[in-house]
């Protein structure tokens, strides 16, 4: 089981759209795929038309009184399942720090990794869609993930964020996730975008060659309530996600 997490400290940079489309493409390739919508806003759940609600809330899941397995919902697509968001996830930092059934990890930063372990036989790929922040949740996700997929808006500031994240992960004991950043919401008409993309792709090995363009079709996902790769598979947007997925496959 390989765990991917889409993460950025900033919100609105295309994390959820990436998670949803990459998870869809993974399933379409025949990998048994699970997407866990960890963001209390529940955007990924909404895009799959699944109610953002978990019985017993985040508390039951994190404390282990409800098995993660019981919270899983099938999406409309073969081989793609989802653990919905729940509004109680907003308190997840507190829950992760609290007591938990069968918590052998002891460290509150390892709880999500521990919860996912029993699903290894059932899924080939897991995608974690993280809420934007630096918190115990994001730290948990970084410890659980094999690959951090980091969307970057092509600006100088976001480049700093990537550096900070890389440094932070480098300080981990033991398991360290691989980081692969990609440019998101890239606007070809903006000179600054073009330059940043060109420079960074030349400088860094962990920046994907495929940018995801800023396109209104991607925004349309919230109207269609489906991945763009599913409802417009021949579009430029879908092609970009497919290229990114292929690159992820090669580089991670």
């Amino acid at each position, binding site marked *: 089981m390989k765990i991917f997490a889409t993460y950025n400290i900033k919100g609105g940079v295309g994390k959820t759209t990436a998670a949803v489309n990459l998870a869809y493409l993974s399933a379409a390739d025949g990998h048994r795929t699970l997407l866990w919508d960890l963001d209390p806003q529940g955007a990924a759940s909404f895009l799959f038309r699944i109610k953002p609600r978990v019985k017993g809330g985040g508390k039951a899941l994190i404390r282990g009184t409800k098995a993660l397995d019981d919270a899983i*919902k*099938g999406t409309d697509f073969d*081989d793609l399942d989802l653990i919905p968001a729940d509004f109680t996830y907003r308190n997840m930092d507190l829950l992760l720090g609290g007591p938990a059934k069968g918590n052998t990890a002891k460290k509150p930063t390892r709880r999500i990794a521990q919860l996912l372990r029993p699903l290894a036989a059932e899924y080939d790929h897991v995608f974690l869609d993280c809420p934007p922040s630096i918190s115990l949740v994001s730290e948990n996700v970084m410890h659980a993930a094999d690959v951090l997929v980091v969307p970057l808006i092509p600006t100088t500031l976001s480049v700093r964020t990537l550096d900070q994240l890389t440094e932070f992960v480098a300080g981990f004991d033991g398991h360290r996730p691989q980081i692969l950043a990609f440019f998101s919401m890239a606007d070809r008409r903006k000179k600054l975008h073009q330059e940043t993309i060109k420079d960074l792709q030349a400088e860094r090995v962990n920046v994907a060659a495929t940018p995801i363009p800023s396109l209104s079709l991607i925004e349309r996902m919230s109207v269609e309530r489906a991945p763009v790769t599913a409802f417009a598979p021949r579009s430029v947007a879908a092609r970009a996600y497919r290229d990114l997925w292929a690159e992820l496959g090669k580089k991670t």
Partner: protein
Amino acid sequence: MTAPGVRGFVLEALPGDEQNLLSAALATLAEAFTVIAEPAAPGAGPRRRIWLDTFDWRLYRAGLVLVFEQARRGGRLLLSQADGTPQAEQAVTSWPRRPPLDLPEGPVRDRIIVLTRPRALLPVVRAVSTASVTRLLNADGKTVARLVADRITVTAPSQPAASHAATSQTATTAELAPRLAVTEVRGYPGQARRASALLAGVPGVAPASQGTFMAALTALGRHPADYNSGVAAEITAAMPAPVAVARLLLRLLDTVESNVDGVLRDIDTEFLHDLRVAVRRTRSAVKLLGAVLPDELAKHYQAEFKWLGDVTTPVRDLDVHLLGFDAMAAQLEAASPADLEPLRAFLARRRAREIRRLAAALRGPRFRAIADDWRKALLEIRDTGSARRRPPAAVTLALSTTGRAFRRVATQGGAIIPASPPESLHDLRKRAKELRYLLEFFAPLHDPVAYRKVVGDLKQLQDCLGDFQDSEVQRGEISSLAEAMLAERAAPAVTLLAMGEIAAKLARSQAQAREEFAVRFARFAGPAGQERVRVLLEGPS
């Protein structure tokens, strides 16, 4: 992702009316769900399935169903219980054209091999089905269940005919009544239940009482477990003895004929084994019960069945060596199992030659004449009674012949002392076998409890005698094989040494069987054993 549907229905529509009934079912579902057709996946063709079992239905008898789901390349083997509960699953890269003796390694094979070995898996039913899938959506437009409508055409693959009588009535292709299944979407079990409840209320939609496999067998006119190698003929105590004997012999002839095709196609070694057992039983029946048949008939067929038994012996002997080869090689202490490989190759070459001879005999006029004329003669006796005016009742014949056979075993066995030659044990083995056959022939006339007791003891005695004789025969065969290999210059020294070691082991196990004989015989023919036989033949005092 959908879980396999367990809620199955059958459309009980008149031919041609299926579409209307399906529309009615969908209209009912539309009261609770938004109903939309799911477009077929690109490149998806009809679903092809093959159900598999051994010729003697070993999986069916064990309450298991094995199906091969064909994919574009290879496919999957799915093993489930008769009620559909999944047991094991295994990917298979390709399905051989010839029935496989062994499945490729995997969880399905692990689960069934102890049941099926040494039998091959044969296709029992092939099905081609076209499914149309309808999505059932909730108010958010989310798929919460699916309705799968399946139109299935089933075919009976050409295979050895299970019973002589059944061949002419078997249909080869049939259309099943369309089947509906509600499949659950993970996390939405309540919605699937709701859809099923709605469907159950539609007139003409009935819960499926049997799975696709059983429905297919019914449609094709096949009866599961229609073959077994037993002798259970339909006889009664009051039936005239000649009629009972004719019924018994007809049942044995059916078994012989049912196995011929499998022997000719060399599907697995059990076809020949079952055929030979039926021939041996026939010979014993003719010998011991033939007095109630016309004289010439018994005499003629005694010779014919001896011939048939003899032509099958070389292949069976080689089969026994080959089937036990790995176990034999594993016992070697001084030699290495690899040393024996030239012997395996030699045996395989011989077998290929012998099976051609056997096939020629089974295709030849002498065998055809046995099968046809013997059947004709037996049918006449069965249907018209015997030429004798007052034949004894079946039960009289059963008791007298069984009693006599028991006394023969008791007398011959009682005379055996440690110094007796091996032949005396071989002879006793034959007598014991005759007694066993008689018991089995007339099993329907005996009290089941008394029968089980006597047969239990007898079986232990037979096993001991069998071990004794088989060890001796095999030892003799090992030395004649060694000579034959030498003559053909196919015998490396290490192989001969390994064969010598095997022969020594056989001698030891023969000596052990000889030691056990006295105990086994005393148990069977001592006072307690005699009392058990008396109860069987006379009833409790």
